[in-house]
């Protein structure tokens, strides 16, 4: 293949420009990095068990706390999905499954997975653990605030789960919580359930704001010497941009949740139109339900990218490390992340094509929605081009990466269908939509999380996860997820509506029953397969193969701490000094196939490194 491309010439031309000190040998000041602008960070070192492990101010511990709590909540979400699939595949098999319970499980599954699992895990978990290490800081800039952030999240989860135990149970209005039905009698959990949901969301937003401020200021103002924005690993770029989105999108959710609580508790009519119920006019009147939808989706659509952008960033790093190649088009990757982030604020009403809003809005939002495909496709091409002719290590991490690309492309393409008004209207509220968003923002980010766990576990715990179990985990999840969601596209095409407790004697029964049974069986297997990871972690925590320093031969800073796992303060006596980007893999002329970010130029003077 390679002889087809006579590209030596272009490479030569490029490298003569990008070569750093090549040919001219070592000059005296080529390793110069200007002195530190800010003094050493003042850190609070915990001494007791409580200050070290519970109310801890170390971002790494907070990251792990976020990870564990989000995973715990995620497992609850998983169990709820099992119960839903049980009902859909085998109606009537479980006697406790009433229609009310079904709606409650649907609602809680959705909210838990999107907000309390994925968002908390990517930003709270990976963000806290990786940002300070990757930018070369000793900790987050406001460690105390960071601790409060986690405990607010803890209380938010507590309030959310408490709604299972109040009279009426949790809210059953669907995860979008649309009024007026969310607070009207007849919807499960219309009293306490929806109130606790709103309170929990408000607490989550407050806690997240504290964490988000930390991530942003750490990236902007606390980088180590030599670490420019354009030398940061894409993981940091992804989490950073997602945090910006969250800081601007969560306010809309906060306001929506607050107004809904007032409608519910005080009887205001922000979202409540005049309603006739059993011949009687309710006391509500004059409000606008569409207003809630706008507020909700002004949060809800950026939320998709709050989950997706960290995944994009992390996957870029994983692919680069395990393909032993620099990421293709680093700058374009950065601009694509920023561009997707900016565009995500102008597309929210594509969730509302059937809400009855002005059709011209649909035209506008379809256009902006489809424009997002451009930067997204750019990223997919760049991942593939990073893999192309790379020195691929086909380990578990790489498998998850490849699984992500396939799943993401799949979900993205169905997104193009649904972005068009004329296609969306008939497909709206069918299983096609379920299949689309589970592929693109459920399974795809999950693949990244799994890849990231296998990748960074050696850093956090100092030991490798078991590869054999990992491969079992991957293949069961990957093939299983396809068995679940691929048939759902077909269910959508034949018109099976989402959020229906049972099909009864509808014409769908004949063609959908077998498929629903199959999907349910696959869902049980995929869900169970996730416990392989937990078993793997428990097993290898004590007995796994010791990882040692920089086990993947990576370039980025988090692997270059003096101790593994890193201690509080991360860097021992001296902060690292950065001389290059995080992607100098397989550099021509270098002794090894990676050059760490801290390697001074004089040590690699005769190699063809990129100038960054």
């Amino acid at each position, binding site marked *: 293949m390679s002889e087809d491309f006579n590209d030596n010439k272009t490479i030569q031309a490029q490298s003569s420009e990008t070569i750093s000190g090549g040919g001219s040998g070592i000059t005296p000041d080529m390793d110069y990095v200007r002195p530190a*602008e800010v003094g050493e960070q003042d850190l609070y070192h915990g001494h007791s068990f409580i200050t070290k492990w519970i109310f801890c101010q170390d971002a790494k511990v907070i990251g792990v706390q976020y990870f564990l709590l989000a995973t715990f909540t995620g497992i609850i979400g998983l169990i709820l999905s099992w119960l839903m699939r049980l009902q859909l595949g085998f109606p009537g098999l479980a006697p406790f499954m009433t229609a009310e319970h079904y709606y409650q499980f649907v609602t809680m599954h959705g909210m838990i997975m999107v907000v309390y699992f994925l968002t908390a895990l990517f930003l709270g978990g990976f963000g806290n653990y990786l940002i300070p290490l990757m930018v070369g800081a000793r900790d987050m800039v*406001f460690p*105390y605030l960071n601790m409060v952030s986690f405990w607010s999240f803890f209380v938010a989860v507590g309030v959310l789960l408490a709604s299972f135990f109040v009279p009426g149970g949790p809210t059953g209005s669907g995860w979008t919580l649309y009024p007026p039905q969310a607070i009207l009698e007849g919807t499960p959990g219309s009293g306490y359930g929806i109130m606790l949901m709103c309170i929990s969301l408000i607490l989550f937003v407050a806690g997240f*704001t504290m964490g988000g401020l930390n991530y942003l200021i750490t990236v*902007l*103002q606390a980088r180590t010497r030599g670490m420019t*924005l354009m030398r940061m690993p894409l993981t940091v770029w992804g989490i950073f941009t997602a945090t910006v989105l969250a*800081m601007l999108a969560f306010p809309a959710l906060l*306001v929506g949740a607050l107004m809904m609580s007032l409608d519910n508790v005080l009887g*205001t009519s922000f979202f409540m139109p005049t309603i006739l119920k059993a011949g009687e006019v309710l006391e509500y009147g004059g409000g606008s339900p569409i207003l809630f939808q706008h507020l909700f989706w002004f949060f809800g659509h950026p939320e998709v990218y709050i989950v997706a952008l960290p995944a994009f960033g992390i996957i870029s790093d994983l692919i680069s490390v395990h393909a032993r190649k620099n990421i293709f088009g680093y700058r374009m990757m950065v601009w694509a992340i920023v561009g997707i982030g900016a565009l995500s604020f102008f597309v929210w009403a594509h969730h509302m094509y059937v809400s009855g809003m002005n059709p011209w809005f649909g035209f506008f939002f379809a256009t902006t929605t489809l424009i997002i495909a451009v930067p997204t496709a750019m990223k997919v091409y760049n991942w593939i081009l990073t893999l192309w002719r790379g020195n691929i290590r086909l380990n578990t991490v790489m498998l998850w990466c490849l699984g992500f690309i396939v799943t993401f492309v799949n979900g993205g393409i169905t997104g193009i269908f649904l972005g068009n008004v004329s296609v969306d209207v008939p497909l709206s509220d069918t299983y096609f939509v379920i299949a689309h968003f589970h592929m693109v923002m459920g399974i795809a980010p999950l693949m990244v999380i799994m890849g990231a766990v296998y990748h960074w576990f050696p850093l956090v715990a100092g030991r490798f996860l078991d590869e054999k179990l990992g491969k079992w985990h991957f293949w069961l999840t990957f093939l299983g997820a396809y068995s679940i969601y691929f048939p759902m596209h077909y269910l959508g095409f034949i018109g099976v509506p989402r959020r229906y407790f049972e099909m009864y004697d509808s014409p769908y029964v004949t063609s959908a029953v077998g498929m629903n049974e199959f999907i349910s069986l696959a869902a049980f297997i995929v869900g169970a397969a996730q416990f392989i990871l937990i078993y793997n972690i428990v097993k290898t925590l004590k007995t796994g193969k010791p990882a040692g320093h920089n086990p993947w031969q990576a370039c980025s800073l988090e692997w270059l701490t003096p101790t593994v796992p890193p201690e509080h303060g991360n860097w021992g006596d001296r902060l690292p000094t950065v001389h290059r980007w995080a992607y100098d893999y397989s550099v021509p002329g270098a002794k090894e196939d990676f050059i760490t970010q801290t390697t001074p130029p004089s040590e690699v003077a005769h190699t063809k490194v990129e100038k960054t």
Partner: protein
Amino acid sequence: MSDLKIEGYEFKPGFKGMAKDTGSDQTMFKGVHWGKAMMWIFLLSDTFIFSCFLISYMKGRGSTIIDWPNPSEVFGLHVFGVDVPLLLIAIMTFVLITSSGTMALAVKYGYEKNKKMCGWLILATAIGGLTFVGMQAFEWSKLIHEGVRPWENPFGAPQFGSFFFMITGFHGTHVSIGVIFLFIYAYKTFAGHYDEGKRGWFTSMKGDYVEIEILGLYWHFVDLVWVFIFAFFYLW
């Protein structure tokens, strides 16, 4: 920023300077305290909260079927036998904006390490804020007395009561939180915590006069938001 010197870094003026700072290592906003940068970004987020409130208000007011009450009548005061529209609000706004002035002076004296002046000015700001909240409580009780509730309104659309109590309540909460912090900071200034760099009660971080500026940013923001609420609620 002209007197700021950073070893090994040359500042450039204008847009080029901004691009250079952004592309440089360590910090993007040169010489800006972490806490100050944090407050700016927090205020940006808070701006979105208030924007959502005000846009919802505009939507609610625009789409209601019952007429919106006339604000200059509802908010009017009857003093010395004459009806004066918006009298209370004018005083409230004046007090709050004056307190912004004293806050700005407090920041100036803080950086000059003039502990006494700084402390008194913070205290004056706190009292201004407290007066504002007090007058707001008076206005609330007056409206409640006249029968306005979050869920009903004898003068017109019930949404008037809903939005009024919610938005001014949310803003009043901001002012009240600010007042609490102003009192704490006044105490800390008089006690000399910022001169000695005494560690904070919760965060255990060393005290510094920059904290007063950070609180000042918050206070000015709360005032600015009031100007918008004033314009949208009372003048529209």
